């Protein structure tokens, strides 16, 4: 009874909040844009400093015929030459730690380019249109400058960014659910009580649903914004995918062990191992300086207050949905057990 009440209240809350999220995402949260004045003032502060450019775009059509843009070492040289000699049309160039990409026109297929992780902005020139950064070269960077630079990032497909209000909460909820699996697994091994095993198992199933939503919505946005569906150099993406695969394995394992107690024990150990490796890897990669791009801050850096509110509502909505699904799964399990019991009784009488 308590479960049914929980299900009712959480599903209503989730529905209301999801509707609200949709409204806020499309009518309240502004499109992510670059404010040219902000960009210029930030840029003049940053001029000459060594810093890591996390993401920005500039439109070379507005560069006029400036020939001093020294981009060749960042980009596919031949494509740069093609542009300079007028064989291709206007380009958008985006530089971020994930990739440098190019396109013939906004919205057309882009291709990942050289890893632009350590790029220093040395000079800046602003034309009539968006700010143009020129002379981009490498070296060491001050990480505290990251957010500044992120905030002047532009989006080449601003409308596509709306999917973020569903993508990020789904990803967050999947982490929450897998975290609950971890907690349930550890508690089961400690206390050996069946309810913890249930929590772990059910939570993993639901986490996989949310993880799938995140993994599907991410590439839809990435295709528009980055020009590719997937960036294999991005640790966050790869970690989420690996976590997802590990939990598919977790559920496969649960299906492959019929005995209840044994299933609980085996899957508890794997649940811990599966969840621990991925965050541990992420943490390790951040702590150790390495060749991997370590900071991925493209989507949250420049959030406006309105967008922030929308994200909070969306996260609440998805969390309510998680609670609702979990309650529903428990109710389902009760039904399953009753069915088992009935089957056993019939079997006994025959």
């Amino acid at each position: 009874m308590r479960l049914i009440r929980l299900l009712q209240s959480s599903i209503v809350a989730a529905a209301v909040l999801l509707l609200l999220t949709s409204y806020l995402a499309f009518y309240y949260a502004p499109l992510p844009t670059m404010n040219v004045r902000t960009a210029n003032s930030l840029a003049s502060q940053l001029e000459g400093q060594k810093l890591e450019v996390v993401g920005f775009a500039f439109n070379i059509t507005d560069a006029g015929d400036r020939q001093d843009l020294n981009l060749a070492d960042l980009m596919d040289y031949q494509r740069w030459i093609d542009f300079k000699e007028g064989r291709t049309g206007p380009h958008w160039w985006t530089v971020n730690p994930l990739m440098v990409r190019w396109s013939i026109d906004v919205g057309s297929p882009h291709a990942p380019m050289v890893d632009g992780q350590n790029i220093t902005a040395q000079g800046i020139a602003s034309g009539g249109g968006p700010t143009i950064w020129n002379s981009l070269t490498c070296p060491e960077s001050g990480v505290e400058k990251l957010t500044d630079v992120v905030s002047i990032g532009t989006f080449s497909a601003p409308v596509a960014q709306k999917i973020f209000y569903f993508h990020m909460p789904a990803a967050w909820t999947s982490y929450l659910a897998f975290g609950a699996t971890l907690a349930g697994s550890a508690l089961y091994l400690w206390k050996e009580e069946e309810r913890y095993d249930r929590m772990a198992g059910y939570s993993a199933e639901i986490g996989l649903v949310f993880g799938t939503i995140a993994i599907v919505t991410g590439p839809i946005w990435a295709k528009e914004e980055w020009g590719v569906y997937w960036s294999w150099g991005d640790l966050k993406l790869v970690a989420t995918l690996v976590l997802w695969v590990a939990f598919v394995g977790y559920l496969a394992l649960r299906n492959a062990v019929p005995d209840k107690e044994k299933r609980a024990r085996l899957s508890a150990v794997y649940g811990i191992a599966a969840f621990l490796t991925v965050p541990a890897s992420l943490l390790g990669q951040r702590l150790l300086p390495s060749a991997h791009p370590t900071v991925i801050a493209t989507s949250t850096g420049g959030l406006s207050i309105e967008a922030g509110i929308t994200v909070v509502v969306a996260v609440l909505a998805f969390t309510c949905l998680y609670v609702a699904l979990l309650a529903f799964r428990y109710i389902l399990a009760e039904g399953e057990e009753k069915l088992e019991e009935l089957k056993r009784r019939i079997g006994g009488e025959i």
Partner: protein
Amino acid sequence: MRTLTLARKDLIVEFRSKQLASLMLLFSLVVILAFRFALEPMLGAESGSLPNLAAAVIWISYSFAAMMGMYASFQNERENDALDGLRLCPVEGGTVFLGKSLANLMVVFVVDVATLVFFIIFFNYDLGGHVVEMLLLTLLGSSTLVLIGTLVSGIAATAEASEIVLPVLFIPLVVFSVIIPAVNATRSILSNDVSGAFNQVAFIAGAAILFTALGYLTYDYLLEG
């Protein structure tokens, strides 16, 4: 001490039959050959100095070899109901885990060295004087693969269709802890940038410690059957 006894037991069984190691040697030979055939159009005559390719081929082969070894070693325990005997031993699960890992490591390391040799021969690859570094990296990588493999095979051994469940459980755990850092480290070493591999090596070692702790603490539950 008990760890060593258990490892010795596994190795004696292995030496008497020689089945596992010889099959695994054959397996790694076949894997390397398969890579060679598949990559032939790409490589042509000069397979020489492609550190990226070498790193990928070597570590995928190592992972496969470890996976095979794990499966086979638990198969032995199952077939003769030896697992029951192991359970009756007056040792903790953690000790069994360490013993098994040690024995498995011996076999897998030998096979991995052989794989490396096969690779050098069939890909006509020149390690460029980094033989010792490569062997050390192989040892470290194999250790982590084996630690994870021993844990996972303990989980999968008694499941239905365990031969399919094992790789499904094994691969996600080794992607971050071994394959990515080891491939990067190998690439650095083969590109004559040995110091560039240190971080990656530290990372693999950290994973080894993590999984040793996890296996040591949880193997009791897996042996309960």
